[in-house]
């Protein structure tokens, strides 16, 4: 055989060997759990620590857990693709907003009967319940908006919008603040608490309820905040976040996911409070409340399902729920854990809990997506002065109904 022939044979043998090698011993596939999550990068060490603790429990020898992180939208698309291809992850650790899509598509399975859901806060369970079925096990309680304030600029939080306005027109200019409050103006999720304070809500069951006087009043209220210069003329999420972190505004309305970040940034100067009561109606703003959930792939069954069930129960037991509140500053979904000293002694977590109590569950209906998409551009047009409030509200309703019809037909 020539040298070239020998080399070719050697190369072919090498390629075959490399192709045949596997990256890790496969072990028992029923003892290997794949978890996908889309949480903040700072949360990953906490998740890994709990998953590692589970693997060390007696009886869990040989169990391996693979956690993969995705961005929110990527995870939604990848999960759909993987489910259609027949190779989905076993568990999703996710917010509830896409659960409706997964449920309708048959990608996740209901958890009624598998878990004792009465142990969790009712509102957080309600946010993942549709047509009498519950589609996830709650891990955190919240994902809700609340007021954060910088104590160096405002020592006490305003309890009412009158107090807020008094600060904004009185003390804020003296402090050299261009605006006193910031929130995400482009996203209707931030409009909802005020809509609730005027007595409205974007959906009743699966039907959009946007063309209401409450909506008109809520949008007018936003315009008033802008007209009086209390909020920036344009403000997206990154914008409001930067303004608050750089102490250019005294108050920000943001979600519970930001508590730990702002605590690191502002330290003791950070205060958390309820969004001020609307003086005009005497009602508290009503943020949407949901949480983070474990969702189980519809393909899980038998021994693997039993193992995953044990993992979820371990992850959401009282000790880990309190540990989660301590590490991540997120409220536990387990009702019993709310009374833990960690939460009761932490003023920021207590304020977060107070805010949840006036909130309402985020609807799980897939129609909500159409509602957001109908509200977003028209709300933007009103804020930029291109459309009147009345016309915008009427069109929001019509557009939402059209989009829902198109989704279904």
């Amino acid at each position: 055989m020539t040298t070239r022939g020998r080399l070719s044979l050697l190369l072919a043998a090498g390629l075959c060997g490399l192709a045949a090698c596997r990256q890790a011993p496969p072990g028992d596939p029923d003892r290997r759990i794949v978890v996908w999550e889309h949480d903040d990068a700072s949360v990953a060490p906490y998740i890994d620590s709990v998953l590692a603790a589970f693997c060390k429990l007696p009886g869990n020898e040989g169990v391996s857990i693979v956690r993969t992180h995705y961005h929110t939208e990527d995870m939604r698309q990848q999960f759909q693709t993987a489910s259609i291809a027949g190779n989905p992850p076993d568990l999703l650790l996710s917010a509830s907003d896409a659960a409706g899509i997964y449920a309708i598509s048959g990608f996740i399975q209901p958890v009624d009967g598998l878990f004792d859901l009465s142990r969790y806060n009712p509102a957080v369970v309600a946010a993942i319940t549709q047509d009498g079925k519950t589609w996830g096990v709650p891990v955190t309680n919240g994902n809700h908006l609340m007021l954060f304030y910088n104590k160096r600029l405002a020592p006490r939080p305003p309890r009412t919008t009158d107090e807020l306005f008094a600060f904004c027109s009185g003390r804020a200019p003296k402090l050299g603040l261009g605006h006193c409050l910031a929130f995400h103006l482009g996203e209707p999720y931030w409009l909802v608490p005020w809509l609730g304070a005027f007595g409205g809500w974007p959906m009743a069951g699966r039907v959009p309820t946007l063309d209401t006087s409450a909506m008109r009043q809520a949008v007018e209220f936003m315009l008033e905040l802008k007209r009086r210069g209390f909020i920036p003329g344009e403000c997206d999420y990154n914008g409001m976040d930067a303004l608050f972190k750089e102490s250019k505004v005294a108050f920000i309305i943001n979600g519970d996911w930001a508590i730990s970040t702002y605590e690191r940034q502002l330290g003791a100067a950070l205060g958390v409070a309820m969004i001020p009561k609307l003086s005009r109606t005497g009602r508290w703003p009503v943020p949407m409340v949901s949480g983070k959930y474990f969702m189980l792939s519809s393909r899980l069954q038998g021994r693997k399902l039993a193992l995953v069930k044990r993992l979820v129960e371990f992850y959401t037991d009282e000790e880990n729920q309190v540990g989660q509140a301590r590490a991540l500053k997120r409220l536990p979904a387990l009702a019993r854990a709310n009374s833990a000293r960690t939460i009761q002694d932490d003023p920021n977590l207590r304020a977060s809990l107070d805010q949840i109590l006036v909130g309402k569950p985020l609807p799980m209906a897939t129609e909500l997506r159409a509602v957001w998409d109908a509200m977003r551009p028209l709300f933007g047009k009103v804020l930029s002065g291109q459309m009147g409030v009345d016309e915008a509200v009427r069109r929001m309703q019509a557009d939402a109904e059209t989009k829902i019809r198109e989704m279904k037909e």
Partner: protein
Amino acid sequence: MISSLLQVARFVALLALAVAALEGYLHYHFTCYGRRWFVPASAAAAAALACAAALLFTGRTAGQVLCSVLSAAAVEAVAALVFSHVVRGRHGLPVMLLAPGLIGLGLLIAYPLAFEVYLAFHDLKLTTIMVWSRTGYIPFVGFKHFVKVFTASPLASVTFWQLLGRTLWWTFINVFFHVTGGFGLAMLLNSVRRFRGIYRTLLVIPWAMPQVVAILAMRGEFHYDYGFVNIMLGRLAGHLPWLAGWGLGPVQWLGRHALLTCTIINVWLGIPFMMVVILGGLQSISQSYYDAAAIDGASAWQRLRLITLPLIRPVLAPAVTLGAVWTFNNINVIYLVTGQAGGSEDADILVSALYKAAFTFYRYSYSAALALVIFAVLFVCSFLWLRFSKGSESVYG
């Protein structure tokens, strides 16, 4: 790290083995076609391989295994007959060289395109996806989605025809400024003798930077309160009150002029590419043409019109075609400037509306039909442009 590298190496090895198997198969068929045993031996080998695969990789029944073996033998027998009676060893080398590329293209382009066509004539959406994932069945609906594309817009407040008009206008304006801006800068650079490399590097930065970073940075500059553009406009109006009297001042760029903002950002992003392409064309023109024109007393305008423009046409025409296609399909700028979660519809073009239909509302079949319509529009426009601009013809011929 090591496991990731091993995974990549394993994938490359698998790919190399697949290519080697394909080349081996073709080599055998191109060289052994004349042997008496060729057809029966090929069919027998295919049957044996099919049998081994069916037994090793799946847990099929005996009937299914037999069926696979017979099918493989029949298909291979037909292929062997074609090679021995029709091909007869001709064009062996070109076919073997082209085969991996053709098969790769087929898998990456032809199959998705064919599936897109299939989807457009069926009804895959939120409520049918579960049935499809479990049974593989999607109802056939014929041209229903194509009719809907023209009659029902994917957006709430903009019709399909408005969207098409807006997309064509967006493409024209962007490409116009890309070409004129790029041409102007390329002419300047071509005439500069010192530090040309430094200038070129500086000018190419917007294009070389990751697009997401560049777009988000520019988006910040158009912020109403804190953006550079409005700060400058505000200061200008403050220093020159007569300009303020004419209405000059901060503008709600993102709220009121979303499409204009997207256009300015995309023009800024696209000029460097066109500049580099045109500069390459300009530098390839021989100086002797200009010397001869100067002797004949040609003016600068005549030199530009009669020498420069015709001679850079072979470079410019494909670049304009590519630029037009990229701009027509440019979802990045619209998506990142108007908000990742849906945003204003004021700046939406066909592809961003398509994205919303597919990934916000899960109307997959409708989106497939819309994508095919967009493909047809682009195909016709590109064909007409190349035909009328004579961009594919040689200027020297």
